[in-house]
């Protein structure tokens, strides 16, 4: 059904070659200028841009030496990087020379997932896609097309698909990552944490990290601020089943039993309330339902928490008192990847409430109020009115979901309810590694009439596509203007530094060409992105030419703390900080967080925990040869006593088998005193099985493959993944 005859291809490509020629005729000056300016110039050229190796979008300066890409450094004017990129950003040039990059558009020639392709022209690819999309639209409506995207590069494709008539657009960054945290804080303070996090780490006098492994998790500004806090002798308290790098900087390390964080949080709040160590003025002025909250948590003594968490009651008391001594500059970090055990929104709410007791929301050294550079958008025609509501959360099954749920779209694709989803577009997110339970993802894909992946490398999800479109990497393209909500206002531009080596194209071009093919050309009134960017920049009295030279411009100084004049306002139903949440009670949930004991591993099994390494982003950088040189495989961290019990040797290879009998790729054992004996740990993103990723193929194991089980957060639909257990299978 998805095949197309060779004859038809020839006919179509004849037509599209003409179209492509017309396209390049529009912008010969730009293309020519690029070559003349960069390749012929001897010596050093510096070109400002912003990074794309993770989503932090640090300002950067790329260096060309004799017209060839040499290195990339932080942009000194950028408030995110402050002139210093993280190791991934510094190694970003490896994305350019990655020999495993996608080179030209591909259409699959065998059944899905077999990774057999034929190279086609862009015209052929667009014809194929547009024909399928129009068929789907005619039969099921435009809503039957869903889009999964990660990062700013997805903006233009989103625009095209919105214009096509679908609103089913989601990202794993909500239901597989930061969703519970943002909802937990929204329920409490009426506002989310956002990205970059609104955490004022550098001014914090007491920083509490619960499972957050800053330093291994390399979000640039946060790590820089963490190092500043360490230098300024802030008291650091780390709660983690693993002795993380951050734990090594801590004054107090709490080696908690996995899954029991809420018990610890309740006990801390019990101490702080019973000893009246909280910010009484702040709570009185801004708090709602404090009496009910206080009555509820009076039962959760440190002695109650001890058998759950394994943390000495005296250590719980001491750390609670230390936190209180430094308030309001006590920051209990909300974390980022927070989909752990299935009651994650309630745990995040407990973190929010502990911060509320410290009075840290809105205060220096706590949570600041971000400010953002304001620039008008491009005046596009209005999108078509949606005929159907979004598919991901029917009848508000998850009443507090504040963004779209990827796994809800996946469910709808499998069941056809509330209505069928017949096409997936996937931009720069490796869904096979991002979503739990690979089998369900494959089941959903098999129900599709069209699956399109746009990416720079052949990730596992590309292996399941019908059409793969190769995107230029960030150093080869323009993108949309970038302004993050942060401590100061700034605007950044991404611009091409080098030409794409093969037939890769920038996302804006792909999105515009597809729109034109679908008869939606009126949604792209501009001829090329330089015109678009210049139009927007002129609205603020700038020009593209000037912006390309500066890379980053600054906006007005704005207050970011209550102390600086921010008016304390809380967008909750009561207009206050909700210690007791009537809206949760009304919806049938606990109005004050309760602790639920997590399921324990069967004998001989260990809870599988996963996290980040500073030199890789998700499963997207393992084939970057510079970063591969830093870390080419992951290891399974095993406590020394456990290793002795199982007769494991350091650096030997084992396979991991989970509770459902799924066996991993082989992985190297790291025997260490840095982890509890009831869990094991690995860095996420390795164990690639895409045959096209030649460099990364088969190196290390994939945690995602072992995450067959997940628990869905009933408040917002987040999929908790730390609920899988593994044992060791020896390599013969």
């Amino acid at each position, binding site marked *: 059904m998805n095949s197309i005859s060779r004859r038809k291809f020839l006919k179509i490509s004849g037509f599209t070659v003409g179209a492509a020629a017309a396209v390049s005729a529009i912008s010969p000056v730009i293309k020519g200028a690029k070559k003349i300016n960069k390749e012929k110039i001897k010596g050093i050229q510096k070109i400002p841009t912003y990074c794309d190796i993770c989503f932090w979008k640090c300002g950067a300066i790329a260096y060309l030496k004799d017209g060839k890409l*040499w*290195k*990339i*450094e*932080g942009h000194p004017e950028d408030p995110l990087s402050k002139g*210093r*990129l*993280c*190791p991934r950003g*510094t*190694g970003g*040039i490896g994305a350019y020379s990655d020999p495993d990059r996608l080179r030209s558009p591909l259409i699959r020639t065998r059944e899905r997932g077999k990774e057999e392709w034929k190279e086609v022209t862009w015209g052929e690819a667009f014809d194929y896609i547009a024909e399928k999309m129009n068929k789907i639209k005619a039969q099921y409506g435009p809503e039957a097309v869903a889009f999964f995207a990660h990062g700013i590069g997805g903006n233009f494709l989103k625009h095209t698909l919105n214009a096509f008539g679908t609103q089913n657009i989601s990202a794993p960054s909500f239901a597989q990552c930061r969703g519970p945290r943002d909802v937990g804080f929204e329920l409490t303070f009426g506002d989310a944490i956002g990205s970059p996090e609104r955490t004022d780490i550098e001014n914090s006098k007491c920083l509490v990290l619960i499972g957050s492994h*800053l*330093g*291994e998790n*390399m979000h*640039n500004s946060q*790590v*820089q601020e*963490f*190092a500043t806090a*360490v*230098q300024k002798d802030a008291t650091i308290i780390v709660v983690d089943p693993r*002795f993380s*790098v*951050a*734990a*090594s*900087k801590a004054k107090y*390390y709490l*080696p908690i039993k996995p899954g029991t964080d809420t018990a610890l949080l309740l006990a801390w709040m019990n101490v702080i309330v019973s000893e009246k160590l909280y910010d009484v003025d702040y709570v009185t002025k801004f708090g709602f339902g404090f009496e009910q909250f206080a009555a509820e948590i009076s039962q959760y003594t440190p002695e109650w928490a001890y058998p759950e968490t394994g943390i000495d009651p005296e250590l719980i008391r001491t750390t609670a008192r230390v936190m209180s001594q430094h308030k309001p500059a006590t920051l209990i970090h909300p974390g980022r990847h927070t989909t752990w055990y299935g009651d994650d929104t309630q745990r995040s709410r407990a973190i929010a409430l502990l911060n509320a007791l410290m009075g840290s929301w809105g205060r220096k050294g706590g949570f600041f109020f971000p400010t953002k550079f304001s620039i008008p958008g491009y005046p596009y025609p209005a999108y078509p009115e949606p005929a159907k509501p979004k598919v991901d959360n029917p009848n508000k099954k998850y009443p507090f979901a504040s963004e779209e749920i990827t796994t809800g779209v996946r469910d709808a694709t499998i069941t056809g309810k509330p209505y069928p989803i017949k096409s997936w577009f996937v931009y720069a997110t490796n869904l096979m590694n991002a979503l739990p339970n690979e089998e369900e993802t494959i089941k959903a894909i098999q129900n599709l009439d069209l699956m399109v992946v746009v990416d720079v490398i052949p990730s596992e999800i590309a292996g399941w596509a019908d059409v793969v479109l190769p995107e230029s990497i960030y150093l080869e393209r323009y993108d949309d203007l970038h302004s993050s909500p942060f401590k100061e206002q700034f605007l950044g531009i991404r611009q091409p530094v080098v030409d794409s080596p093969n037939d890769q194209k920038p996302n804006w071009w792909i999105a515009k060409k597809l729109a034109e093919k679908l008869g939606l050309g009126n949604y792209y009134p501009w001829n090329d992105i330089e015109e678009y960017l210049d139009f927007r920049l002129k609205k603020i009295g700038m020009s593209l030419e000037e912006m390309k030279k500066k890379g980053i411009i600054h906006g007005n100084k704005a207050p970011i703390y209550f102390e600086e004049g921010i008016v304390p306002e809380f967008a909750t139903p009561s207009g206050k900080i909700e210690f007791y949440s009537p809206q949760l009670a009304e919806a049938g949930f606990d109005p004050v967080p309760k602790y639920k004991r997590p399921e324990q591993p069967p004998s001989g099994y260990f809870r599988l925990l996963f996290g980040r390494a*500073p*030199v890789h982003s998700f499963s997207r950088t393992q084939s970057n*040869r*510079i*970063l591969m*040189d*830093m*870390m080419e495989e992951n290891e399974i961290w095993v*406590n*020394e006593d456990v290793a002795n019990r199982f007769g494991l040797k350091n650096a030997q290879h084992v396979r991991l088998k989970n509770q459902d009998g799924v066996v991993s790729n082989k992985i190297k054992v790291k025997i*260490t*005193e*840095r*982890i*509890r*004996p009831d869990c094991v740990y690995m860095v996420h993103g390795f164990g690639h099985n895409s045959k096209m990723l030649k460099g990364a193929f088969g190196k290390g194991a994939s945690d995602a493959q072992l995450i067959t089980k997940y628990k869905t957060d009933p408040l917002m639909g987040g999929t908790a993944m730390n609920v899988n257990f593994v044992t060791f299978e020896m390599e013969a």
Partner: protein
Amino acid sequence: MARYGMVIDTKKCVGCMDCVVACKTENNVPEGHNRDWIVTVVNGKFPTVNLEIQSQRCNHCDNTPCVACCPTGASHVHEVGKVVLVEHNMCIGCKACLAACPYDARFINPEGYADKCTFCIHRVEKGELPACVSVCPTHCMSFGDLDDPNSEVSRLIASRKNHQLIPEAGTQPRIFYLT
């Protein structure tokens, strides 16, 4: 004349390897090789663990076995900052210096010569910091003249507890780790 050295604050270092990556791109270090690297020293029994992360490289020693053993004079002490360098054209790739170095700081470049950290002398001579120092997101590294008592490195060594690597080798290494 200056005597360049480095001071690295292990309290701030998170072992992110940015120093390693920056060296690689700055100096075009070939795939599979690095001029600097991270060592993590773990002591204790869970949960009472101590961790020290060290960004390591050539120590640009005052007493240089790598220079003493070089049969061609390729390994030498540079007049600027007493930095230990290898003259690629003179090196025959005999590996004597690799064997002599107690820090395992050298490797044979695929082009046939002994390769190692230069303290980014090409940058330092222009008034810039070595690439590893200038990139570090935690600002844990300092570089400067150990003979100048007012330099940042001298002040840090005087005021903070510190150690060198394998001092018993007698090479008088010029990288100091603050603890």
